[in-house]
């Protein structure tokens, strides 16, 4: 069986400083059925733009330039506008970072969920409202029966994000894209929302593409992780493999700078330098300027992916170098034995 979402060579360009710059550059990844894939990266790495590219909601003047996005084998990038609209919400739903501004301030929240339901199903207004109440209960909104009549400004940030989740669930999507769903919330509320997402994922068996910069969240909820740096994926691995054995120097740096993993009392190690701006990305490996293991070859051409373990792919010359040295060593040993 194929994966639910297959993304190949996805490239999204924005005009910047006189040329079209690939903000998202030839991404390859998959999200399996019932899987939670975390897309991790710093701000400016292109992770939100990746999410919007999947939904074909890249704001102008940007555009998805090339590549392929398949949902259940169906290509989304060349779907007619009308068919794509049916995919949004019913096939792939999305929740955003800012629950404060992501709801329409002049519409009652129930009305907004009802709209989402009725966009994809022929149901009456009152039936939709009933379902909205049940969705509110499902996502743990207290007093759901009354809260459907509330306006967004009458709800707290956490409740608003629950409304967003209810809205996203309303058309029973196969994939939920959650773009930094907890960043704008208080720490205690963050944990509740994450647990809710996990529970719902288990109940409904939908897949989740979680976009975040927070490795703590990744550790709590993800099955698999893809690390994004400057528009490119540098490493993908199952969660445990990534946390126990990070291979790309950037991933290693990220993990070292995580407070929970660092030795207490020590200063948190940081990755020197900043993410280069998209208009002056180098032709070689984009991490080269900040990498401690940089070699001459890194500055020339982008490194290719190599399998480094079960489901563990990394794009780094240093590893390939080490591996080939290891192979050579093995060969020499064999020769010596013979």
């Amino acid at each position: 069986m194929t994966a639910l979402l297959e993304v190949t060579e996805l490239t999204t360009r924005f005009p910047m400083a006189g040329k079209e710059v690939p903000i998202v550059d030839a991404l390859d990844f998959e999200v399996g059925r019932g899987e939670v894939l975390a897309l991790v990266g710093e701000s400016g790495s292109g992770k939100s733009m990746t999410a919007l590219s999947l939904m074909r909601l890249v704001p102008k003047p940007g555009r998805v330039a090339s590549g392929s996005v398949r949902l259940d084998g169906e290509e989304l990038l060349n779907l007619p506008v009308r068919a794509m609209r049916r995919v949004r919400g019913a096939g792939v739903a999305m929740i955003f970072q800012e629950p404060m501004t992501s709801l329409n301030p002049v519409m009652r929240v129930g009305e907004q969920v009802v709209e989402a339901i009725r966009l994809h199903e022929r149901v009456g207004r009152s039936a939709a409202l009933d379902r909205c109440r049940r969705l509110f209960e499902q996502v743990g909104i207290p007093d759901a029966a009354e809260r459907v009549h509330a306006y967004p400004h009458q709800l707290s940030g956490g409740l608003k994000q629950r409304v967003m989740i209810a809205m996203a669930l309303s058309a029973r999507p196969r994939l939920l894209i959650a773009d930094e769903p907890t960043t704008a919330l208080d720490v205690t509320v963050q944990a509740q929302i994450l647990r809710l997402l996990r529970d719902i994922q288990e109940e409904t068996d939908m897949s989740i593409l979680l976009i975040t910069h927070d490795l703590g969240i990744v550790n709590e909820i993800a099955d698999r992780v893809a690390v994004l740096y400057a528009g490119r994926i540098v490493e993908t691995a199952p969660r445990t493999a990534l946390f126990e054995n990070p291979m790309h120097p950037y991933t290693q740096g990220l993990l070292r700078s995580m407070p929970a993993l660092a030795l207490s009392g020590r200063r948190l190690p940081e990755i020197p330098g900043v993410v280069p701006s998209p208009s002056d990305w180098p032709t070689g490996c984009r991490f080269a300027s900040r990498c401690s293991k940089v070699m001459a070859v890194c500055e020339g051409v982008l490194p290719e992916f190599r399998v480094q373990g079960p489901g563990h792919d990394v794009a780094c010359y240093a590893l390939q170098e080490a591996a080939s040295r290891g192979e050579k060593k093995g060969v020499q040993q064999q020769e010596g034995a013979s």
Partner: protein
Amino acid sequence: MGAYVIRRLGYGAIVVFGVLFLLFILFFTVTSPDDIARKALGERVPPAVVEQWKINHGYDKPLFPAPGQWADNMLVEHYRRMLTFDFGRSDADDTPILERIRKGMGPSLALTIPLFVLSLLVAIPLALLVAFFRETYIDRAGVILAVLAMSVSVLLYIIGAQYLVGKVLHWFPISGFDSNPQVVVRFLALPIMIGVANGLGGDIRFYRTVFLEESNTDYVRTARAKGCGEVRIMSRHVFRNSLIPLLTRIVVAIPFLFTGSLLLESFFGIPGLGAITVDAIQGNDFSVLRTMVYIGSLLFVVGQILTDLSYALVDPRVRLE
């Protein structure tokens, strides 16, 4: 709600007091009653005639309160007359001002109400259309046309249209008014068309900016992500949110419908309040001008209160407290 309205009215009253004070400064101290009399009578009139004119027109009291005259002076008199709508007589031709205003309101409204409604009906859909096609050539052409239209002086619109219709096309009479509704339509058609054309550029540009600002919001992205079509997004999400800024511009204008239009009325011979004002300017009729400014300010204050109240209708976040 009730308390809010009372507080709002209270502030409005204070503003009206301020306006009246400014008017007093302008029309009684910067230009003294003597100046006004001289303008009405001519420079070479003997002082006795000037004094008699001042008595006849109620300008004969000392300007400011002084011991023994706390109530009997021009300042108090000015407030009393204005607040009781006792506007007195015209400085130029002795006609009662209130009577003229009452007569002028009808023709003014006959011009301004259709003009107002038509402007909205033309400008808002056009602006929605332009905003709908944002970042395309339609949008760019729309904006350039709007700026072009805004850059033409209203005088040129009027003169041009009068020439075109009056001398070349002969569709409508170029000037005049009639109390018979069936006849008056022919007189009003041209000024209304010119009024709409003159405001269109600025209106479209303003509405477009508002619509575009709303279309770049997060909740519009949410609506797209749940599968809303663009037309539905415009009509249900963008338009409803845009009403808040739109109302500021629209509701405030409603009271001014009563005061008519200076230029259109006098160019097209419509005997409304605008034409009365123009006559007052050309005839140095200070009492009429003073009254018109006062009525305009009064209507503006009313418009402000109406605007604040109307916010509560369209924006659930606003509560009148």
